[in-house]
């Protein structure tokens, strides 16, 4: 009963989103205010019905309604209640419904907070969002409904949630990523609406920026969390595999990063306008492409999603319409847009330009590496795989100019700069960075590879130059405290974001270079030494969980005679699916992670154990968090709140001075 209601709600929501797609766009086209004014109500109605539909699925999962194919395949009665809730997005169909929920949520949010926008723009933004909603809802209803029933014959027990997904990190990882993917659709809609309206001004950039930043923030968190989850859950201590599914999330992130930088330039200086629009289109297109890659199964990935060529074709068709349509519109309209700002070669504009080019090149490289195997196979040239070394190599090449420019850019002024004025500053920063890097690396490690040295140097370079900039700008005021207060949130966001990025580079460089990984065969009672830490294998004990049984290896770790930690590395066997899972045990700290995972049981009582020492790995995810925090700072910038209030007042005046009821009023 309840699941049927869920299905009906979703159908009603589809109806509303079709109206949302047609009414406001038609209204904006014919300048009919009454039609345009229907948009917010439709957006909110659509959101309510989608949420009802999702609530029905959650209810079905909580009450173990195995008459549904989806629940029977992704849940079981022995699953703890919180995993029953998360199982609603653990499988393909539910995940797509969650996607729809978020799409509807973002649309409703835009409709609520866009009151200060002029009606034609507001109606078009919501109309485009409505169109995207139609696409995803049709997909969910036609190709992957989670409400498909097994009646009259249904199993008494479900197949359980994939044990890999039974982890707190996994509870929030997919929703965060979807928030990011879908969030980019708002930026996309703003860009399309602006192209339709034919007005691409600074106000547009100002409006787009907080939405883009919030989508970026969610993507950043989602990717960082995914990496952390892979590290702690997959049991082999890797944190990034250049797997197609990971690449699918990295591409929109890279584009979104480029976009927030070019939006800053558009907003403050009125430059790069048409480029920014193109990036906004590209950002969402890459989200869709990612969905296609993940859901269609065209690429082999470690992520075992249910795949189906029919679904892939649907998404590919939708992708074609969205990308083709928006690029055609872009080609027609963008030529009319000209950027007014002028700037010299040595200016912040050019630095941002450089940033954008490198980020786009990075995106193209990921795209190439991800799709080449597919193209190769389709051309009949046999299956190939492109190894991690390719991506690692390419990204190291890109990192050097990128990080170098990142250190210089904040010191540059808009419009133009004299090189001489900067020369001394850069020299000082270079000397300080070099000193810090040399004394740090050579005092801690016996041998330092060039690439590691360079990467750490660049991370330090970014940090030092950022600090230098803060101090220099702050000391221009009467006191440093006053100086600090004059900085805007945007400035703090830039500083924080760059610092977070430096943390990530540092961590990646040091972890890659100085991790010690040992796979060993051990009998209980034996011990080995790794980087001053003694790992003593105390023994194996049996464990019994809610829906699994297994073994845990007890490993106590000593350093210089003192006990540091006792780790319990588990190997679980999940009852329902009879699947084995490795649950690694980690002793984490900012300086190093001690990582123990239990392998298989060998003959004569020995066990295989993975014992890893991973220096500075925490800084990778910490850096991700810091970057996300930077995004949060932008969202709380007074400029956006102040600006929207000012616009709102202006708009209210307009409305008062205009006859609203006439139906043909133009605004």
């Amino acid at each position, binding site marked *: 009963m309840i699941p049927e209601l869920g299905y009906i709600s979703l159908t009603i929501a589809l109806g509303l989103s079709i109206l949302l797609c047609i009414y406001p766009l038609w209204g904006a086209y014919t300048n009919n205010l009454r039609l345009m004014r229907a948009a917010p109500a439709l957006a909110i109605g659509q959101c309510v019905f989608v949420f009802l539909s999702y609530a029905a699925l959650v209810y079905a999962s909580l009450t173990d309604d195995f008459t549904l*194919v989806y629940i*029977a*395949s992704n849940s079981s009665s022995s699953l703890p209640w919180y995993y029953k809730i998360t199982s609603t997005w653990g499988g393909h169909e539910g995940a797509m419904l969650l996607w729809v929920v978020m799409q509807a949520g973002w649309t409703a949010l835009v409709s609520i907070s866009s009151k200060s926008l002029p009606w034609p723009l507001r109606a078009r933004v919501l109309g485009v969002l409505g169109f995207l909603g139609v696409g995803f809802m049709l997909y969910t209803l036609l190709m992957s409904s989670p409400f498909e029933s*097994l009646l009259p*014959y*249904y*199993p008494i027990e*479900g*197949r359980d949630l*994939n044990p*890999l997904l039974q982890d707190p990190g996994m509870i929030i990882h997919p929703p965060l990523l979807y928030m990011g993917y879908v969030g980019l659709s708002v930026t996309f809609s703003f860009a399309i609406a602006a192209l339709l309206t034919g007005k691409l001004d600074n106000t547009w950039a100002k409006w787009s920026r907080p939405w883009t930043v919030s989508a970026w923030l969610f993507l950043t968190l989602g990717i960082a969390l995914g990496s952390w989850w892979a590290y702690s859950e997959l*049991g082999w201590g890797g944190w990034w595999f250049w797997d197609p599914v990971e690449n699918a999330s990295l591409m929109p992130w890279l584009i979104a990063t480029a976009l927030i930088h070019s939006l800053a330039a558009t907003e403050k200086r009125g430059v790069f306008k048409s480029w920014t629009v193109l990036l906004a289109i590209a950002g969402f297109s890459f989200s869709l492409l990612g969905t296609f890659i993940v859901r269609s199964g065209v690429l*082999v990935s*470690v992520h*075992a999603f249910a795949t189906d060529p029919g679904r892939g074709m649907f998404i590919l068709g939708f992708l074609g319409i969205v990308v083709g349509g928006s690029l055609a519109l872009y080609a027609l309209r963008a030529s009319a847009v000209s950027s007014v700002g002028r700037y010299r*070669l040595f200016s912040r504009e050019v630095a941002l*330009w450089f940033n954008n*080019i490198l980020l786009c*090149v990075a995106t*193209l*490289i990921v795209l*190439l590496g991800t799709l*080449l195997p597919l193209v190769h196979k389709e051309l009949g040239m*046999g*299956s*190939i*795989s*492109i*190894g991690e*070394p*390719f991506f690692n*190599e*390419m990204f190291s*090449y890109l990192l050097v100019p990128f990080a170098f420019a990142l250190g210089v850019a904040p010191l540059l002024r808009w419009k133009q700069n004299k090189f001489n004025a900067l020369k001394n500053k850069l020299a000082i920063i270079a000397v300080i960075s070099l000193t810090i890097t040399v004394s740090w690396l050579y005092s801690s490690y016996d041998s330092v590879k060039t690439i590691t040295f360079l990467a750490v140097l660049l991370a330090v370079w970014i940090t030092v130059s950022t600090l230098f900039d803060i101090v220099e700008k702050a000391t221009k005021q009467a006191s440093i405290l006053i100086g600090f207060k004059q900085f805007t949130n945007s400035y703090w966001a830039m500083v924080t974001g760059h610092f977070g990025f430096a943390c990530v580079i540092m961590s990646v460089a040091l972890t890659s270079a100085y991790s010690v990984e040992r*796979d*060993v*065969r051990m009998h209980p009672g034996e011990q080995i030494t790794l980087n001053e830490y003694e790992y003593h294998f105390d023994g194996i004990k049996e464990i019994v969980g809610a829906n699994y049984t297994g073994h845990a290896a007890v490993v106590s770790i000593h350093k210089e005679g003192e006990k540091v930690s006792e780790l319990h590395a588990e*190997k679980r066997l999940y009852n329902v*699916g009879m*699947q*084995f*899972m*490795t649950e690694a045990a980690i002793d984490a700290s900012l300086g190093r992670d001690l990582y123990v*995972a239990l*392998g*298989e049981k*060998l*003959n*004569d009582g020995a066990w*295989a154990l*993975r014992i890893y020492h991973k220096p500075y790995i925490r800084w990778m995810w910490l850096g991700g968090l810091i970057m996300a925090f930077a995004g949060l700072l932008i969202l709380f910038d007074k400029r956006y709140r102040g600006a929207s209030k000012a616009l709102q007042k202006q708009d209210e005046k307009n409305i008062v001075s205009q006859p609203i009821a006439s139906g043909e009023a133009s605004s």
Partner: protein
Amino acid sequence: MNPRRKKRMMALLAVVFGLGTAVGLVLYALEGNINLFYTPTELVEGKGPEKQKPFVGQKLRIGGMVVPGSVKRDQDSLLVEFKLRDTGPTVKVIYKGILPDLFREGQGIVAQGNLIAPNTIEAFEVLAKHDEKYMPPEVAEAMKGIKHEKPVYNNVKGDS
């Protein structure tokens, strides 16, 4: 040339130069990092219409089913060897390390490594997908219509 044109010219040149460098580096990096996929039959008898065989020392990927009873472990280390096959001859894989959770006899796996003898691979990575139904797609294709030792797993629709 007026300054605006000149600036555009500079920008264009920079883009062209950047793209050129990027393409060059990409091709260079790709050359060493493309790993061809072989099934055991292809490895032994040659791949494609020209029956191209890999050369000893080549880095490659191989996918097949683990032949039941072929897994041999070393007594003192984590060295393990096993045989892979699809429809024809078998190929030996040597690996030192911990096998993935889902590795078992009769299961489809993918290994990545170097060919050290015409039909022996020293793997540095062994992958078994986290899904019992998984079989490398290339292997599935090669084994179409042939009975194999894949573990039988009924999905829910089949149970009902």
